[in-house]
């Protein structure tokens, strides 16, 4: 995967291009509405969903408040069970640790379990530059990797592709990476899955190093947990001689009892299933296998220090917010310029990366604040609240600042507002149908309302509230 999100323009420009892509719009609409419906059904059937959600929120909040204690407990438990724990302050350090670990094995290829953390740090690209090939084994990640593409969804990274496009990618690219696709490959889902299965099977059996992330880490026993659907994770987690897991420090849960809540919340929120097909759990290293856990900060402790923004660290990467978001549905994942797209990406990316770039500053504005994401979130992250909080931190354009200041000055005194209204009413016939400058963004697609001859407050004044 040579493409990166680095240097992408701001969200509105990316989105303007995306909304005109009819294939993308069709694919996204179909996929998000399908998952949306499935999620709604399996969430709706649980009488105690609200309680589960509250419990998930409370467990995560408690863990985050005591993260220092639980992380040390985890380190001790993993070490006791024969694993090695490494601490990475940022992406560069994590990449260096993983590269050194792979080099120590003498191998030049690794298989990967789908992992957001390794995408966040750009691990595949880092390894490739050092002569190590990372093979993605999740079907959708494989599609993205073969297509020299970027992920556009947390759970379904190839959501922007339909099966005809996937067939094309398999036919033209599979041979470059290993076993070629069957010559007469159709775009039937079963045929596509079979082609991927055959392609990947050889890889699983021949590769000696695997890299994964984890959905959860349990502090009391040092157990890591991966939930998946395809069995590729199980292959990677059990077959290779060396397993390296890169996990964000917020993925922690204190006890197995806590895990019970999340094993209900996650599959129902993400794939819309009561239970995911494969749940793999491992504690330390088993005989004949080496296990390394790389604990990744990469901005997380900074997020933790922000009283409003820290709730984003409760996220369990389920994607429910993406699937219900009207903005994501129309813009697609690439517009967000990050491996974390959609509503959660709009609050996570600018917090992890900072508000330095124009793109990252534009992300908190990539929302109409409709609140659908908050309702769908299984750990009750108040995404609109964090969006507004980040908007207050972002630097604003000078013209906008001047306009907002002027509006604030007018609203500061009722007599100023009344004067402004009278001025508007007097010149109401002169308002053009198409507005100039940035306001053209309104009149390009929408008519303006007629300005009334009299404001409400003047009407009230003149008529004594309609009594005269």
């Amino acid at each position, binding site marked *: 995967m040579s493409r990166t999100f680095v240097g992408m323009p701001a*969200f*509105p420009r990316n*989105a*303007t291009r995306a*909304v005109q892509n009819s294939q993308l719009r069709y694919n996204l609409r179909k996929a998000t509405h399908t998952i949306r419906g499935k999620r709604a059904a399996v969430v709706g059937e649980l009488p105690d969903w609200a309680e589960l959600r509250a419990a998930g929120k409370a467990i995560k909040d408690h863990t985050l408040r005591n993260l220092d204690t639980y992380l040390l407990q985890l380190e001790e438990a993993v070490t006791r069970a024969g694993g090695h724990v490494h601490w990475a302050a940022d992406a560069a350090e994590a990449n260096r640790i993983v590269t050194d670990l792979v080099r120590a094995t003498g191998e030049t290829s690794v298989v990967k379990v789908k992992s957001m953390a390794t995408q966040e740090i750009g691990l595949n690209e880092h390894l490739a530059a050092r002569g190590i090939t990372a093979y993605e084994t999740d079907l959708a990640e494989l599609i993205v990797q073969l297509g020299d593409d970027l992920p556009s969804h947390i759970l379904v990274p190839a959501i922007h592709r339909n099966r005809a496009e996937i067939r094309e990618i398999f036919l033209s690219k599979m041979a470059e990476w290993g076993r070629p696709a069957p010559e007469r490959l159709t775009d039937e889902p079963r045929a596509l899955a079979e082609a991927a299965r055959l392609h990947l099977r050889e890889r699983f059996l021949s590769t000696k190093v695997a890299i994964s992330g984890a959905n959860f880490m349990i502090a009391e026993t040092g157990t890591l947990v991966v939930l998946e659907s395809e069995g590729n994770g199980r292959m990677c987690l059990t077959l290779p001689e060396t397993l390296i897991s890169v996990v964000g420090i917020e993925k922690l849960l204190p006890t197995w009892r806590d895990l019970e809540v999340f094993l209900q919340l996650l599959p129902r929120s993400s794939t819309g299933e009561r239970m995911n097909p494969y749940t793999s759990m491992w504690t330390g290293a088993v005989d004949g296998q080496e296990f390394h856990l790389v604990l990744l900060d990469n901005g997380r402790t900074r997020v933790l220090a922000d*009283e*409003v923004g820290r709730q984003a660290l409760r996220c369990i990467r389920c994607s429910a917010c993406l699937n219900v978001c*009207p*903005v994501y549905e*129309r*813009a697609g994942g690439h517009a967000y310029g990050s491996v974390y797209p959609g509503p959660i990406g709009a609050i996570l990316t600018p917090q992890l990366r900072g508000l330095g770039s124009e793109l990252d500053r534009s992300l*908190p*504005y*990539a*929302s*109409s*604040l*409709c*609140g*659908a994401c908050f*309702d769908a979130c299984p750990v009750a992250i108040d995404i609109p*609240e964090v969006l*507004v*909080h980040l*908007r*207050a*931190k*972002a630097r*604003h354009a000078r013209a*906008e600042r001047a306009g*907002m*200041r002027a*509006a*604030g000055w007018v*609203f*500061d*005194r*009722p007599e100023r*507002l009344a004067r402004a*209204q009278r001025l*508007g009413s007097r010149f109401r016939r002169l308002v053009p149908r198409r507005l100039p400058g940035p*306001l053209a*963004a*309104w009149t*390009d*697609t*929408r*008519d*303006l*309302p007629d*300005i*009334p001859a009299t*404001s*409400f*407050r003047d*009407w*009230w*004044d003149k008529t004594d*509230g*309609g009594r005269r």
Partner: protein
Amino acid sequence: MNHPEFCERGLAVRVALFITCVNDTLFPGTGRAVVSLLRRLGCEVEFPAAQTCCGQMHVNTGYQAEGVKLARHFGEVFAGYDAVVAPSGSCASMVREQYPRLARAAGVTLTVPKVYDLSEFLVDVLEVTDVGAYFPHRVTYHPTCHSLRGLRVGDKPTKLLEQVRGLELVPLPAADECCGFGGTFAVKNPAISSAMCADKVRNVMDTGAEVLCAADNSCLMHIGGTLKRQRTGVRVMHLAEILARTEADK
């Protein structure tokens, strides 16, 4: 606090009208409709003339300091009233839902007056659903995000519409989806905003309604502006304007 209590105390229900800056400036007809409707139901309506804006545009666009200033002013103007009624779910939710968050984020203390959206005030406080209205037209209702997911008004507005004589209420497909207005979002992300509205308009057209009703003129300005631009012939009306209509207005 509800209507019977007021009656026991032998008082008329005294209501402060929070008109909102958008209605005050652009949609005074909605304000007049609220006044006539509430008076018809026995309320005494006051209009605190010092009111300006709740600060939502500033806060939601990232201008916290200006927002706090306006929120403080709002608190001073409306602090003394038992009930404040606003013909806007969004502005009512700004005060009730967002003022406490704003206070927390900005580290200030804010007064949060008791603000009701019109449908909440009618159904919960006055305990009426039949307001004696007459409106013989085919109408569909868009619930608006902040009424639905902020204030959680539920089916109160449609309960009111169902009791309007002559009115044929047609359900709006995908009603709970945002129309794409979102305040300054409409001009900051015009492509997405318009794409969202295109779907809303399609759903409105599918109902075959003459009138699209909502309890928020900001959303209606957005959807209505698109309906008008596309020459659909469908008009938009605020809930208050329909509920204010009687046989006498024919």
